[in-house]
């Protein structure tokens, strides 16, 4: 709603003040994320913009922390270089991808059931299925820590994968149910009356239509697992390092700029995921738009 041409001076001033305020809020949201990007290329061991760095002096800029991150020791560097970061990356991907697959499968099927007209206790069940997103992580971790140690799941990858699956499923349920609202059930009837069995109907008719929702849900589940640190600390063992756990340790103990390098990589990852989800969302809207026109 832009300003009409007959606006008074007061209205104009108000409108521009409003725009400035909004600009500041957007800046508040986005600036901290971009502040760390240049800093990861600094050669200083502290998290600060030095004068040399700001003046683009070559020696103040370096890739030394990136080299340390991937486990290559630079010559004359006294720091003991471990490849904890690479180990963490590997673990994060193993746990994240496994949890994503499980969460997506379970969540999609459950969302299909929840969207059926004759599902009893829909509200209550939905509230239960979403609860892992609402219950504070520290309480979830405490519960899992006690219970999983009873049944021998602590310090195992299986335990971490199951825990992260539980945390990821709400996102899949939410996104897939959202895609299923307004889903034309006549399409299923049409498919069945033309002789397709349940499986064929699911893969050929339902799946292509809900796929955008399923993929967004999967990406949410992935980032949830990839970013999760509290459960990993309580349920996982000391050796089970993941990226966020290593960052946490780094922040609490050594505060090394390698954290900034990893943070930069994670920002790149989140930009990639966000772009994918946005493209999918538009595709989904388009698909459903076409359906409505028919």
């Amino acid at each position, binding site marked *: 709603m832009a300003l009409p041409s007959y606006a008074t001076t007061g209205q104009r001033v108000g409108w521009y003040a409003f725009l400035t305020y909004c600009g500041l809020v957007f800046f508040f949201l*986005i600036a901290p*994320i971009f*502040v760390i990007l240049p800093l990861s290329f600094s050669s200083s061991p502290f998290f600060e913009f030095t004068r040399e760095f700001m003046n683009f002096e070559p020696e103040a800029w370096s890739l030394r922390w990136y080299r340390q991150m991937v486990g290559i020791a630079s010559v004359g560097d006294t720091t003991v270089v471990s490849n904890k970061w690479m180990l963490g990356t590997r673990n994060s991907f193993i746990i994240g991808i496994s949890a994503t697959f499980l969460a997506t499968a*379970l969540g999609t099927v459950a969302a299909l059931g929840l969207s059926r007209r004759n599902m009893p206790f829909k509200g209550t069940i939905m509230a*239960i299925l979403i609860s892992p997103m609402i219950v504070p992580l520290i309480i979830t971790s405490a*519960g899992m820590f006690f219970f999983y140690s009873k049944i021998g799941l602590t310090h195992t990858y299986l335990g971490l994968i199951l825990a992260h699956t539980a945390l990821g499923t709400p996102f899949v349920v939410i996104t897939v149910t959202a895609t299923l609202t307004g889903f034309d059930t006549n399409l299923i009837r049409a498919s069945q009356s033309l002789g397709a069995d349940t499986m064929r109907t699911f893969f050929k008719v339902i799946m292509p239509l809900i796929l955008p929702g399923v993929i967004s849900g999967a990406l949410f589940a992935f980032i949830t697992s990839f970013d999760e640190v509290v459960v990993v600390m309580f349920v996982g063992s000391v050796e089970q390092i993941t990226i966020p756990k290593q960052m946490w340790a780094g922040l609490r103990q050594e505060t090394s700029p390698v954290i900034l390098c990893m943070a930069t990589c994670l920002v790149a990852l989140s930009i990639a995921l966000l772009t994918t*989800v946005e493209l999918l969302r538009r595709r989904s809207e388009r698909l459903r738009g076409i359906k409505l026109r028919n």
Partner: protein
Amino acid sequence: MNETTAGSILTTEGIPLKVSLQKAERRNKIRAILLVAPLLLFILFTFLIPIGDMLLRSVDDSYINTVFPKTFKEYKKWDRQDLPSEELYKTMFFEVKDSEGYAIGKASTRMNYAKSGWKSLLKKSKRKFKKIEEGPYKEQMIAIDKKWADMEYWKALGVMVDATTAGYYLNAVDLKYNVDKEVVRQKENRRIYNHTWVKTFKVSILVMIFCLMLGYPISYLLSTLPLKYSNLLMICVLLPFWTSLLVRTVAWMVMLQQKGVFNNLLVMSNIIADENRFKLMYNETATIIVMTQILLPFMVLPLYSVMKTISPNYMRAALNLGASPLHAFWKIYMPNSVPGISAGCMLVFILAIGYYITPELVGGKDGQMIGNWIAYHLKTTLNWGLSAALGAILLGVLTVLYWVYNKLVGIENIKLG
């Protein structure tokens, strides 16, 4: 009349239509349940049962009963007036002497919560009891340590005789049982939790208010701009949403620390002197600033989706009828956006109240919330009963809020971008 007509209609198999329909309905219902069942069971076993199990710990006091079963049985006969009889001393003596050191250690930690001093007393006694061969035990035990003749210690055992206790819940709100099992307040210097509860609510409410103050205008802007601009600006909201929580916290550490970007900019532009840099890090202010930025997307998304549905014609009509822009906004736009406000505020508050990571990293001593105490007792003091009780109270508050949220907004309407 209808019944007979409906009953007379038969399907091709010769079954009454009504029966056949009911059967089909039932089959569909079962099919729906079967689809949901795997996830429901999964959540039950990996999530709900663990949490229930933890909650049981908040009232559980059975361990000590397994270490001193005979003593506690004998204890119930004691009149609590004079020092216990030789019999009670004797059972206590043998149960301390014959138990595993590990079991005594664990039990004495529990006994120390009831009366401090038990732990050292048992540790000392366990060592010295080995030398005692025969009775009478009462005098010999008192000779080892005077505390065995102290009524306070014996009385304190009474708090632990039952297998369940409300003691941890009392501790969680700065109360405790005294040795006579009466509820009293904690000593002045040990009252920490009520203060923390208040702070947790205060921080959550402030974060909620700030999120609303920052989120409402930008949601309004986003919902009124043409789609091609709003999609672009929406990325500013969604990118933080997709960025790792730890990354954002690190970013804020870079921004807010003493020699951080914010202070540097102020010093460089001569607004403040080099020695008067603001202390923005490791305190409550930091917790509030960082949590506001982290939770802002959860406010903007529901607000935006509600504002999208408010037709601009309402405002035009109001302005046309002579309302000033502010008046029109207040009387027309604002009431229409209330569902978004309540959804956003509740979601932000619900998520804020259990925060742990951010206060831990940027809050310092002053910015700690209840989640941090739960973690502290889990990891450091190993007082799991207390952390379970704190968690149970927090969970109770959240369940009420979650229920209200579900009634008000509907859980299926959570927006994820």
